[in-house]
């Protein structure tokens, strides 16, 4: 892993098109700003990991009996 030290207001540039800026440091919390092209999705890692797991869990195994599924109230 590449490790860089940055101060508040300083940035790093990734692949020429993505800029990550340290906006604020308060105790254990760091606020980070990301500027990226619209085609680049940016998510908190724990949210990303949760969605990957959710998608894998949602991929169907076997057939579904639709008649047995919950109906709207």
């Amino acid at each position: 892993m590449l490790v860089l030290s940055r101060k508040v207001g300083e940035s790093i540039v990734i692949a020429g098109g993505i800029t990550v800026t340290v906006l604020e440091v308060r105790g254990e919390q760091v606020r980070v700003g990301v500027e990226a092209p619209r085609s680049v999705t940016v998510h908190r890692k724990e949210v990303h990991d949760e969605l990957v797991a959710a998608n894998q869990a949602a991929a169907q195994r076997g057939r579904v009996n639709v008649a047995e599924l919950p109906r709207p109230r």
Partner: protein
Amino acid sequence: MMLVDSDALGTIEVPDDRLLVLPDGLLGLEDARQFALIPADDMGVYSFLQSVDRPELTFLTIVPAFFFEAYEPEIADEDVAALDLRSPDDAQVLCLVTIDDQLVTANLLGPVVVNTRTGTGRQVVLHDQGWSTKEQLGMN
């Protein structure tokens, strides 16, 4: 019209207006980009989202409004731009369903939003809107 092979559903004729392109795929499944949306009931509640390229990849989806009246996803500007959404009327929201024994849940944190005008879709993330990946559908 396109013939789509599905391990779960067999071979299905899908009209062109039910073919979707997800240019970024689904999170963790970025290689599957072409899907067919196949009605699973005649009320429009459940649909199958079938990968066109991977017959083994089938999802069950719901139109969330049928189950979650309070669900009003706010789509981020970058997602609106990526989908080229010009009117809320063009957006169709689908949530992936997971069946785990008797427990049936829907992913309301990361819905798939489709631009019905263009047939392009994208899985978006509703940050800080209070929804999880495992919202339970009505009780069985």
